[in-house]
């Protein structure tokens, strides 16, 4: 786990080079969904990520798990991109490298800022029918049927390929890589690296097409409550806590909580 905060304080953007190298947990579920589709139908899986060179490790992991192809979009020009710019660049890469896709799967969340915005914005860029938070996918012919839970509503949706879904973490528990997969990851398949020039994105156009939002400041969250601090051996501290708050707890749970010795005195 990355627990240090890799913020570049000057630029105010996440330093992805420090956070790279681990696959986003939700993306693992999306990859698992793709692998299960591949097991049932003849499919080719291309994984795409945008990040610093270290993100290559994420792609190696995907190849080891069974992906067929991997594309890394890597360019200093893209550092600090917001979701608006990221989704635009992903679109360019997909159009260039795998324009005949049937289905795009994204993780429903990202581990860093949890914006969950890139998937839906990519759907807009590619003008695709889309659904977020998908728990289950079924394919028959060119029709994709998905189930999901949104705001307490259980929904079943259908759309035709090509389509985009973001996959939740309810199902599609990620598998572990097999040893033979590791061979593929490091010997068989090459990772293709793209930069903005090869995508036909000019530095000048990133000004106009690039990020819409700007981080002005990053700061530590302040805690608000003044609080009671209890310290000591576990058994003592628990007794002290209950003596003080058992009445309050009792009221909430609708049961009486009291010390035995009080009982004995009756």
């Amino acid at each position, binding site marked *: 786990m990355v627990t240090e905060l890799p913020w570049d304080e000057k630029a105010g953007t996440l330093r992805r080079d420090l956070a790279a190298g681990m696959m986003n947990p939700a993306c693992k579920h999306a990859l698992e969904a793709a692998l299960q589709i591949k097991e049932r139908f003849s499919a080719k899986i291309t994984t795409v990520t945008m990040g610093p060179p270290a993100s290559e490790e994420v792609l190696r992991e995907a190849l080891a798990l069974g992906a067929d192809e991997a594309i890394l979009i890597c360019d200093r020009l893209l550092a600090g991109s*917001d979701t608006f710019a990221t989704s635009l660049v992903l679109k360019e890469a997909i159009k260039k490298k795998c324009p005949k896709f049937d289905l795009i799967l994204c993780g429903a969340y990202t581990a860093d800022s949890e914006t*969950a915005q890139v998937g839906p914005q990519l759907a807009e860029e590619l003008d695709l029918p889309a659904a977020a938070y998908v728990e289950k996918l079924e394919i028959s012919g060119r029709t994709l049927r998905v189930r999901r839970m949104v705001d307490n509503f259980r*929904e079943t949706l259908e759309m035709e390929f090509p389509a985009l879904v973001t996959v939740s973490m309810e199902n599609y528990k990620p598998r572990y890589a097999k040893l033979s997969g590791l061979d593929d990851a490091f010997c068989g398949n090459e990772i293709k690296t793209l930069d903005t020039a090869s995508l036909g994105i000019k530095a000048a156009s990133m000004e106009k097409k690039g990020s819409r*939002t700007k981080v002005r400041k990053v700061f530590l*969250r302040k805690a608000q409550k003044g609080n009671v601090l209890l310290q000591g051996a576990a058994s003592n501290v628990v007794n002290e806590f209950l003596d003080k708050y058992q009445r309050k707890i009792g009221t909430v749970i609708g049961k009486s909580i009291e010390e035995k010795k009080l009982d004995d005195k009756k």
Partner: protein
Amino acid sequence: MTRNRKKSIWVFGDYRNYYQNRVTLQLIARAVALAKIIEAEVCALIFGHEIDEWIMEYTAHGADRILAIDDPALKSYSTEKYLAIIEALAKERNPEIILIGATDFGREFAPRLAKRLKTGLSADCVGLDITDDGLLLQIAPSFCGNMLAEIVTEFHRPQMATVRPGTFKEIPHDYERKAIVERLPLMNNLPKSRVRLIEYERSVEKEHTIENASVIVCGGRGMGNREKFKKLQELAKLLGGDVGATRPVVYAGWAEHGVLVGQAGKHIKPKILFSFGISGAIQHTAGLGEADFIVAINKNPQATMMKMADVAVVGDASDVLNNLIKELKKRIRE
């Protein structure tokens, strides 16, 4: 046609769980405060069928103007239809700001709307203000830590944000209030939906869950391991409550994703929250906004969770848990 309109702050009317989720009212309240600073009006959007109740409610809670489309074709929520409608309205009327509740729907819908309007969007804000230079200051949680970022959209309009439910307080209703209600026809060039809604129903399985539990026992990595974590269940049972978990715990497989508490999981509002071995990253604490009374147990008295707590118990989470279970068994009378 450009008219010299007053600036407008739009609030998307997410009325689907009106009685459970008041985020639209909370956003209207915040918009009213922001509108005063930038001299704007607050405009609520309501698209649906048989929506008079929401028109009345949003007016009573502070909206100056309502843009309403009441049509049987809008009977159920549709991302695609709403996108087309708001895209057309926004291009015609140029709102300064659009605020959307960070419900599941909002978090899927808002990014697409922002993309269509070619503008910026910040996700799941926990604060909104106006900067000295008159921009919407969007305060959003950032990288897995206790960090907040101040985000602005400098050069594009509208400025957009999704906002976490529970961030702001609604204005008490006043049914005498009046708003300008514009009832608009559904545009007839609405594109055909490419996503077909086959089935939808309000989920019953969700009715009794962690979201409405009055006692919640949450555990984090500080519990040590899966077996020790499972012990939380025992305390929850004693107190008639539910167990919640942080993200690292869910990822480690100690708990199901369904009990994840936080920004990407459940937003809880227990009367008492026990927090065992949780440091208090904002991804988790963002889900605790409405917890009444917090008891945190952690080795580190400097942990954010300990500072947020009403009672902070310094100690090994698992030790304290075991002692608490033992002692409660002695003390609870049925």
